[in-house]
């Protein structure tokens, strides 16, 4: 049965892509979505059966890929990632039904999207170097097509696709190098062969392979400084594609790190995990800081993805550190935290990106400074975004909180038992984690408050209407899941523990227990998310009742809408409100030295007298400082080399013949 499921995943995906490319516009999206759902359902079935029974699915065939064949194995770790991807994919494709009429019903998009979903679903199944790389590349190419969807209308989409193509292929090259090195030294290209041999390799080689793989997979996960493509591509991709990229694809970067670090290489020394933690800390802080200061809704979400992947990497690093220093209990808690954070992130970031896509459909803009007042005009989308924002801010009773709590517990119980270098790095990690948390809260209060509350700041926002029912359903389902996972994380914890046991090579299968309250086994830590939420709900009901009672027997209306206080002005306009830029100004000023925004002040005076000002123009932009300071000079350098190289390749046939002659002479000299 499970083996049939695996085949169904691939077949249904291919059928969906073919139908999406072949059918007429009226039916192609429906057909593509239907078969993508079949593919997702089959993948979910296989993953759930692996997660609930520990029974590993294994298949291999030499007929599909020539020379190497295909090897497929699904273990609990891969299965967990499949679940996360399938959930986001089902919601996003449902949402796609409504979104399609907004420029996502072309042949290319309708066949690329199902293929993208299928290749993502299958990456965790891959169990040989060739299978893995083919699926990985397919995922990259299909998502690239999706980023390019809007390229005829938006110049930015083309540039984003270029960045994405270069970064993802540089990453793929690194991954290729690492995996090829591994298989060359272990005499086989299936992961089972590699696993059997890799632990006997020299420490230096293992370290090199790990670092190369970390760079490759880190760029997919949006680890700073390899994140530059993320705010561009995730922002420019159309709604469902951006949700898939941010909610599902980045996870596979994390999967890759766990795959190479823990499964193939079988764990490593302290410095590996220190490196992962440092990368995580930098990503988390940098992502949170830019999310807090950015005023483009989807760019903000993309930076927050870098931030969240940073948190996951901190947890993975901590788990590795504790495991390497011989504390399996805390290592297990940290690994469970990492996987829970990953799963939660998929759910809430999927919801947020789908809601942001709905906003873009309804208003035609992502610029927070032109939004506002959407909570009244788009109540469902607004509520979805609010739930997602509270989840990403790690506030109870939503799902983000449970993951962060577990991470804190892991760090707090792991710290006293570690050696000094670990202690100092983990303390810094906790501080970074805390600052990240604070900045994330500010970022999402800004996104929700400026984007959805208050008065509309533009005509487009004033005229916004709620989006199609399928879009609301797709996004709403993920928002409901945020609440459910926040109240009863125990629903997924047993599965996560199975996966963590595989990922961390630790005995994590009983790290937690309990249904109403969550107990950490062997450690003193208890959390009762549902009781906490129940208490808050009861208290809220009581408060509302008190407020009602105060009105009892009064003749006036319950709430009287009035003009807000304007310091004596009669009329207040929407332009007097705070904008996203002004909201972030204090934080931007505090962190001025880090993000170095460029400011430009133009004052033009009247011709008659320079004491009178005709016009003042103030421009500020906070483009990515790493992109500006590192990537731009690098690109300029490459371009400079390209210009120089044109001297060699100037189109003259005589010169090319001369090159051939010189090369021949050199070869003859060398050979002789």
């Amino acid at each position, binding site marked *: 049965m499970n083996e049939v499921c695996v085949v169904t995943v691939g077949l249904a995906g291919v059928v969906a892509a073919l139908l999406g490319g072949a059918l007429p516009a009226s039916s192609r999206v429906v057909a593509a979505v239907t078969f993508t759902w079949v593919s997702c359902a089959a993948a979910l079935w296989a993953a759930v059966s692996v997660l609930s029974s520990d029974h590993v699915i294994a298949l291999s065939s030499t007929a599909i890929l020539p020379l190497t064949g295909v090897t497929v194995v699904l273990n609990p770790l891969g299965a967990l990632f499949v679940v996360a991807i399938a959930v986001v994919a089902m919601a996003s494709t449902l949402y796609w039904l409504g979104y399609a009429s907004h420029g996502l019903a072309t042949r290319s998009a309708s066949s690329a999207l199902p293929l993208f979903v299928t290749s993502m679903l299958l990456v965790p199944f891959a169990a040989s170097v060739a299978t893995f790389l083919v699926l990985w590349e397919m995922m990259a190419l299909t998502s690239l097509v999706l980023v390019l969807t809007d390229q005829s209308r938006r110049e930015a989409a083309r540039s984003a696709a270029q960045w994405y193509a270069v970064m993802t292929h540089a990453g793929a090259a690194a991954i290729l190098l690492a995996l090829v090195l591994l298989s060359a030294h272990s005499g086989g290209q299936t992961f089972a062969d590699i696993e059997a041999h890799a632990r006997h390799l020299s420490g230096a080689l293992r370290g090199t392979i790990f670092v190369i793989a970390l760079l490759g997979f880190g760029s997919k996960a949006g680890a700073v400084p390899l994140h530059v493509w993320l705010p561009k591509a995730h922002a420019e991709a159309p709604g469902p594609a951006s949700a898939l990229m941010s909610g599902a694809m980045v996870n596979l970067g994390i999967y890759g790190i766990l795959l190479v670090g823990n499964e193939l290489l079988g764990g490593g020394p302290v410095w590996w995990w220190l490196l992962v933690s440092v990368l995580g800390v930098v990503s988390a802080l940098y992502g949170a800081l830019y999310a807090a200061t950015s005023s483009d809704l989807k760019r903000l979400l993309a930076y927050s993805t870098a931030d969240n992947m940073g948190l996951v990497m901190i947890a993975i690093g901590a788990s590795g550190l504790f495991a390497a220093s011989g504390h399996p209990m805390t290592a297990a808690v940290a690994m469970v935290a990492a996987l829970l954070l990953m799963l939660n992130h998929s759910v809430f970031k999927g919801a947020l990106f789908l809601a942001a896509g709905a906003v873009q459909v309804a208003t035609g803009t992502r610029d927070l400074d032109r939004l506002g007042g959407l909570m009244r005009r788009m109540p469902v989308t607004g509520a979805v975004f609010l739930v997602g924002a509270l989840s990403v801010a790690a506030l109870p009773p939503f799902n983000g909180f449970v993951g962060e709590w577990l991470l*804190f517990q892991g760090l707090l119980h792991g710290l*006293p038992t570690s050696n000094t270098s670990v202690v100092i790095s983990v303390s810094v990690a906790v501080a970074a984690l805390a600052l990240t948390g*604070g900045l994330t809260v500010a970022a999402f209060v800004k996104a929700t408050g400026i984007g959805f509350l208050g008065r509309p700041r533009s005509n487009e926002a004033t005229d916004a209407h709620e989006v199609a029912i399928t879009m609301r359903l797709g996004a709403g389902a993920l928002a409901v899941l945020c609440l459910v996972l926040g109240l009863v994380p125990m629903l997924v914890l047993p599965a996560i523990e199975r996966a963590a046991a595989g990922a961390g090579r630790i005995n994590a299968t009983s790290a937690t227990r309990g249904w109403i309250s969550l107990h950490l086994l062997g450690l003193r830590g208890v959390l009762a998310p549902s009781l906490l939420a129940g208490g808050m709900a009861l208290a809220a009901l009581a*408060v509302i009742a008190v407020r009602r009672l105060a009105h009892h027997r009064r003749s006036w209306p319950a709430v009287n809408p009035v003009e807000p206080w304007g310091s004596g002005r009669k009329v207040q306009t929407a332009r007097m*409100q705070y904008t996203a830029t002004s909201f972030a100004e204090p*934080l931007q000023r505090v962190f001025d030295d880090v993000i170095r925004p460029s400011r430009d002040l133009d004052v033009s005076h009247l011709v008659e007298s320079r004491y009178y000002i005709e016009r003042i123009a103030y421009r500020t932009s906070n483009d990515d400082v790493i992109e500006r300071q590192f990537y731009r000079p690098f690109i300029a350098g490459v371009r400079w080399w390209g210009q120089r190289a044109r001297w060699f390749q100037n189109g003259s046939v005589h010169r090319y013949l001369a090159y051939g002659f010189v090369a021949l002479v050199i070869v003859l000299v060398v050979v002789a």
Partner: protein
Amino acid sequence: MNLAHVLTQVLEALVQVAAVAVGGPLLLGLMRKVRARLEGRVGAPIHQPLLDLRKLLAKQRMRPRESSWVFGAGPVVLVATAVAVAAISPLATTHPPLGQSTDFFAVVFVLLLGSVALALSALDTGTAFGGMGSSRSMTIGALCEPALLVAILAMAIAARTSNLPALVRDGLAHPAVIASPARILALASFLVVILAESGRLPVDNPSTHLELTMIHEALVLEYSGPDLGLIVVGESMRLVFLLGLLVNLLVPWGVADRPGAWAFGAGLLALAAKVAVVGVAIAVFEVFTAKMRLFRLPELLAGGFVLALLGAVTAVVR
């Protein structure tokens, strides 16, 4: 677990919540009285905030014309979060209801939910003041977070748990824990955070309405009537709650460690006395302190953070 036990627990929770809810406004009144006396005024009676509340609750509710449901939900969430944490925290007794799951991190994040609700409702007013207050309070909140969480971590590392009742019991059973540098540094940092989060001097001046400097007052400027009353209750409950935690972690003596109504009552009285002393101390401090500039605040909060980090490090290498 028998019925009588459950009923006792529920009753204790209700009494604790009621004590915090009534004690909050009274503490505000007391602090205002102390300030007035030190400034040479007579000042309003201590129970004046309660009288104000009665007046506010009888008024009509108003909301800005273009606001959404979020505006009305803000004060409710603020009070609900304060009530939820007050019910399950070790304030009068070290065995509060559901005390086993009263985690310090959870408590802090629940309170943060209240602040976020208020910041969102301020933005919902669609005015410059709302945005100003929201932006400033979120900035301060973001910068407080490292100090707060590392302070909790420092205490939790020393006790090997972040369970709040366990932390208080630890201090009661081993007074040496309280005198340890980890606990003292962490609590100093915690105090800085409390002052910042509850909008006291030197972070925010609770008694002015000056546009250029106000933070908290700007946040709640559009509220009136019962909603404003809820906000006053919620904010003062948070202050009493946080100060109650602080004193119980610093001087746990007096808190009820045994079951029984008498012990509980004595614990309640001890809590009131300890919180009143700290409240008076803060009021005296406020008389002699000027408000800091908004952009000097990061220095203060960074100071708090450094204290907490030192605490954490000493807790580990002890």
